[in-house]
């Protein structure tokens, strides 16, 4: 009995949910928009505030040393480059072109994941190196003013923290993200291959 008409008849027999009110739908659309915008705004604000704070301090202490200035510039570059990368990324993440064919859409998703993978790898490293170098140069001036014992403790603690972050926290976080991204890419490619056969 399983003929084509049967399938079509059965298919349309599926009860569908009631049409949500148009207003409800539009509220949902608005919420989606604001939540995306807020995420972007939040990240930018935190990083920009940090930068402003660093520059403010940098300007307000009497720093004749060039290293301090270079340090400040490096920290600022680190933050700005991170912002530039993530700002470019976030709208792209949400703005996939839903109006293309499935095949193109899947290719789009894969492309985005690859970019995300790249961003994840490169940007974290760049951000980290610039920030650490900046911090170190910035600190030199303060180290000079301390007595040798405190200066040593200060240095050991700072470098200890940087080393911990670089050798432990960074790879761990990266690996986790990488694994999730790779799984996703493999999954998307698998679906894309369904269209190839």
């Amino acid at each position, binding site marked *: 009995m399983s003929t084509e008409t049967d399938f079509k008849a059965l*298919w*349309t027999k*599926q009860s569908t*949910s009631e049409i949500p009110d148009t207003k409800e739908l539009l509220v949902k659309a608005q919420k989606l928009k604001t939540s995306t915008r807020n995420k972007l705004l939040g990240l930018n604000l935190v990083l920009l505030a940090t930068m402003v704070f660093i520059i403010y301090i940098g300007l307000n202490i009497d720093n004749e040393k060039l290293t301090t200035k270079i340090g400040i510039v490096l920290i600022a570059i680190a933050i700005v480059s991170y912002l530039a990368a993530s700002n470019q990324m976030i709208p792209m993440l949400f703005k996939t072109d839903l*109006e293309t*064919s*499935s095949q193109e859409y899947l290719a789009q998703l894969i492309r985005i994941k690859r970019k995300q993978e790249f961003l994840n790898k490169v940007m974290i490293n760049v951000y980290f190196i610039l920030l650490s170098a900046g911090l170190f140069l910035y600190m030199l001036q303060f180290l000079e003013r301390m007595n040798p014992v405190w200066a040593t403790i200060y240095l050991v603690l700072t470098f200890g923290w940087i080393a911990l972050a670089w050798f432990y926290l960074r790879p761990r976080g990266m690996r986790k993200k990488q694994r999730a991204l790779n799984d*996703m890419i493999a999954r998307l490619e698998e679906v894309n291959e369904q269209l190839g056969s």
Partner: protein
Amino acid sequence: MIFDDIYKTYWNKVFRICMGYVNDYDWANDIAQETFVTVWQQLPKFRQESAIGTWIFRIASNHCLRQIERQNRMPRSEMPEQIIDHIEPDKEPQVQFLYKCIAELPETDRLIISLELEDVKQAEIAKIVGLSETNIRVKVYRIKERLSKKFENYEH
């Protein structure tokens, strides 16, 4: 074209396609809603290069495919019984079985057969999915064969 008219005309169709894709009433409802949010947002930019139906089905299909990104959702089989049964969308076992079989197909096949059963022309399906018409014809034939076999086993 006015959004309200489109919404009323296409809601059931879009809902069924989402249902074929995920076979989960609430989830299908969510995807259908997301689809119409996109339709509402993009409608002013819609330039009638394709039929409105094709355009809407493209958006719906891509919203379905997008669910791949969200597969950390708990698979239905792992949910406790009482949660699964809280809505009984359709009492007719054959209808349920058809949707179950479709949702078990590979992702793109789910979309192709759903569109076919929704009476979308194969030329249009080709445009929606991004394959040639011949390709679609072959695929539809194979999928139907597969479904028929499942139904034969089910009935005997």
